[in-house]
């Protein structure tokens, strides 16, 4: 049997996707189904004075906060976000009423004729002025205060901003629900985390766990956007189904999806750095601020990841990171690929170029003098045990990009050219899996079930959202069992039948869940070892004939030697990091302010690559989102409402906007990962924005310090 890992095997559900046979939630039709719509607030803050329907309510099902049988809050971290606002409005697009009708056009007309009168209150839309703190951290290493004076010390300060970003999965969010007091609640939908939805529905309806069932349909992209918000939509569909006694489908159109659902947290980062004239970092004092929006959602953990990544892959004895996620009256921000790290890494990697300039070093030379090495520790005090060679990784990326000769050539040519070119660098790391003790609390579990014909089914709540869960987990199981890739199949994620393998987030599916699949597979082999002389399929048949079922489960155990102190935020923040050096080449048209990325090199160490095509696809797709965040994707708010909620005016990159993205992997097997693999999904979101802005700064001399760097913003920066 040839090994499955390392081969570009066909994606498990690929055939369904290329033939149109794959079923997404909006493709499902239930007999007697109603269509639901959501009435939302038009003000950012206020109180509801009165509601007038403006239509005959008789033929409609209408749900308000009064109809909620259990807890009127989406269960997540802090139960502060109502499913339906009863009185107080804390952000625009806050759900207030739900309406359902068998004719979706009728439901939509009804929605538009609802009139809500508000007592408007002043809204806080500026995170830098908000005093309302969801979460703050103070992370300290060494002594920063004493390190900023001395004859040999240069102090470099900088301030950096990042904007909100829409996930813009091409499949809008949606759910279908069936619900009744007797039968409980079942939902089908587009989601990353079935058990998050399960928990939220239990609380919403005050039902025991066996009365709530959540089934994931084929899901058309997530990127974090379908991590927490699907709980809201599932609740809404289920409330309408509960009241009407009919199945209810609730699908967002694009405008509603962009206006109402979560986005990447906007950020501001301030750096104050003490550096010796020889380029050695002496102290890093970092202040990191996130706009959480009106409710907490996942802001504390987004903040945590951003905080831990804020000092990057550098060795520095004195580090202080103060961070806060604050409340504003924007619609809540939430999970988006990278989860806080792209924001703080953008600031750091832009700042490193400023530090280099301040001491007269080239950007790559400053980085080289400060890279973490084996035996040194990160900002949390996590000691690096691997043979880390970041300088080598960076140098190979620079060679891939022909960096040195291009940099010289561009500097020469730019003097006389309207189109100015630049080439920029970012070096960074990204931790895989939940932060700190997160994986221990999750207690993830997987199961494998073998059938009498020797086929094996993987039961996990980890979802396929395009990234390759089905394929990767099948490869891991096939190799651990010594059977063919085609003999392994995936169960549909359904909380009624699969164990909770945790959420599909945090670059954890391959590394953490994959490892559990590997151990469950080894468990299955141990059982079958009792059937000597039989083939795999014969042994399965013999066992099932004797015992009825053949099933093996595995539950998370932390790798040896991992310690985390939650109170002081010290220790081993992640089991493993991926390491990367990205190089971007840009051309800036100085008459229009437009920036085009002409070449992009993404070189990274991610442990063993289990599937070369899927792994490259993750990097290419993440880089494309990073380029979008850096240059094109601007969420425009007016009085707290998104005013460009269309694909016409929220601009993501097309095929014609992007360069070919050149991906290079370096593979150092990770002992605690399945087949030596680490996490990969979020990493590529971190590097593009700083590499691109470093390139633009080099090309134009403008002090660019915020993304997205639209032509208007570049013109402003160039005038300063």
């Amino acid at each position, binding site marked *: 049997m040839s090994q499955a890992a390392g081969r570009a095997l066909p994606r498990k559900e690929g055939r369904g996707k290329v033939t149109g046979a794959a079923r997404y939630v909006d493709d499902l039709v239930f007999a007697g189904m109603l269509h639901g719509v959501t009435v939302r607030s038009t003000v950012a803050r206020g109180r509801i004075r009165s509601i007038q329907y403006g239509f005959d309510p008789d033929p409609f099902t209408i749900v308000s906060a009064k109809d909620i049988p259990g807890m009127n809050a989406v269960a997540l971290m802090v139960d502060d976000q109502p499913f339906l606002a009863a009185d107080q409005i804390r952000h625009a697009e806050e759900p207030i009423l739900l309406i359902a009708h068998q004719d979706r056009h009728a439901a939509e007309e009804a929605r538009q004729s609802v009139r809500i009168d508000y007592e408007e209150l002043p809204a806080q839309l500026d995170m830098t002025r908000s005093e309302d703190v969801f979460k703050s951290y103070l992370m300290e290493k060494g002594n920063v205060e004493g390190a900023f004076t001395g004859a040999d010390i240069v102090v470099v300060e900088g301030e950096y901003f990042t904007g909100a970003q829409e996930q813009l999965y*091409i*499949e809008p969010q949606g759910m279908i629900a069936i619900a009744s007091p007797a039968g409980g609640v079942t939902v089908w939908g587009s989601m990353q985390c079935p058990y998050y939805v399960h928990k939220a529905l239990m609380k919403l309806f005050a039902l025991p766990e066996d009365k709530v069932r959540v089934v994931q349909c084929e899901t058309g992209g997530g990127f974090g956007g379908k991590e927490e918000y699907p709980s809201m939509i599932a609740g809404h569909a289920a409330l309408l189904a509960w009241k009407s006694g009919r199945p209810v489908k609730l699908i967002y159109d694009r405008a509603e999806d962009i206006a109402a659902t979560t986005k990447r947290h906007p950020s501001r980062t301030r750096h104050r750095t003490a550096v010796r004239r020889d380029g050695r970092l002496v102290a890093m004092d970092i202040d990191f601020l996130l706009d959480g929006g009106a409710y907490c959602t996942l802001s504390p953990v987004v903040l945590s990841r951003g905080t831990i990544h804020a000092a990057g892959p550098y060795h520095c004895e004195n580090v202080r990171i103060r961070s806060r996620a604050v409340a504003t009256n924007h619609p809540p921000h939430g999970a988006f690929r990278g989860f806080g790290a792209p924001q703080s890494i953008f600031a750091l990697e832009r700042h490193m170029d400023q530090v280099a300039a301040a001491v007269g070093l080239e950007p790559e030379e400053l980085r080289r003098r400060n890279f973490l090495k084996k035996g040194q520790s990160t900002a949390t005090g996590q000691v690096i045990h691997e043979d880390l060679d970041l300088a080598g990784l960076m140098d190979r990326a620079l060679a891939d990009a022909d960096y040195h000769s291009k940099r010289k050539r561009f500097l020469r040519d730019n003097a006389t050219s309207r189109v100015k070119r630049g080439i920029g660098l970012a070096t960074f790391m990204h931790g895989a899996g939940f932060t700190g003790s997160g994986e221990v609390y999750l207690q993830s579990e997987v199961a494998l079930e073998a059938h009498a014909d020797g086929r094996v089914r993987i039961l996990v709540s980890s979802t396929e959202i395009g990234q390759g869960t089905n394929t990767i987990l099948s490869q891991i199981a096939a190799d651990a069992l010594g059977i063919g890739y085609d003999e392994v199949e995936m169960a549909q994620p359904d909380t009624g039948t699969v164990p909770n393998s945790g959420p599909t987030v945090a670059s954890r599916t391959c590394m953490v869940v994959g490892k559990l699949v590997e151990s469950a597979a080894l468990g299955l082999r141990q059982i079958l070892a009792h059937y000597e002389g039989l083939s795999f399929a014969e042994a399965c048949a013999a066992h099932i004939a004797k015992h009825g079922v053949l099933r093996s489960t595995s539950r998370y155990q932390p790798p040896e030697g991992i310690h985390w102190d939650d109170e002081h935020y010290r220790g081993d923040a992640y089991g493993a990091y991926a390491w990367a050096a990205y190089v971007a080449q840009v051309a800036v048209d100085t008459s229009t302010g437009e920036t085009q990325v002409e070449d992009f090199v993404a070189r990274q160490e991610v442990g063993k690559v289990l599937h070369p095509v899927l792994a490259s696809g993750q990097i*290419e797709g993440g880089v494309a989102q990073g380029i979008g965040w850096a240059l094109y994707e601007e969420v425009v708010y007016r009085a707290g409402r998104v005013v460009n909620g269309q694909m016409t005016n929220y601009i993501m990159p097309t095929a014609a906007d992007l360069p070919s993205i050149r991906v290079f992997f370096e593979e150092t097997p990770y002992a605690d990962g399945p087949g030596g693999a680490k996490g990969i999904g979020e990493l590529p979101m971190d590097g593009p924005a700083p590499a691109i802005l470093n390139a633009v700064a080099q090309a134009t001399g403008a002090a660019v310090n915020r993304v997205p760097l639209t032509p208007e913003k570049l013109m402003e920066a160039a005038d300063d």
Partner: protein
Amino acid sequence: MIDERERMTFRLRVNGGEHEVRAWPMERLLDVLRLQLNLTGVKEGCGEGECGACSVILDGQLVNSCLIPVLQAEGCTIVTIEGLAMGDTLDAMQQAFVDEGGAQCGICTPGMILAAVDLLRRNPSPDEAQIREGLAGNLCRCTGYARIVASVMSAAHAREARKNQ
């Protein structure tokens, strides 16, 4: 509310079959295909002609079916993703998307494949820039387009190779 009496009969030739549907003249072709003919491979991503997920080929032209009133499709020949494979045998472009990793989450894939088929019809051996330009009306959020470009290249090469046999 929409008046049932305003529905009219339209004849469509879809994926080789003749269909009569009752629909309002301004009803979106997208909805008629999905809801009446159960061709759910036609996807809705934006409803305003920006994303291309609802692409179908109408009388040989690639169109966004969300922007076409069914009235305009009367008597027309339409190909959707469901009409591409010959029984169990995938079309060369579908096969290329499987082999080269052109599909990730799959929601843009039907439209993207039809756009790619349409591109090769107009230009049988496009270079990378022509592929990128040719597919610029179809948005994909997963792939960064690299594997899609590779899929189209591969399908074009496969077709050339077959021709030269």
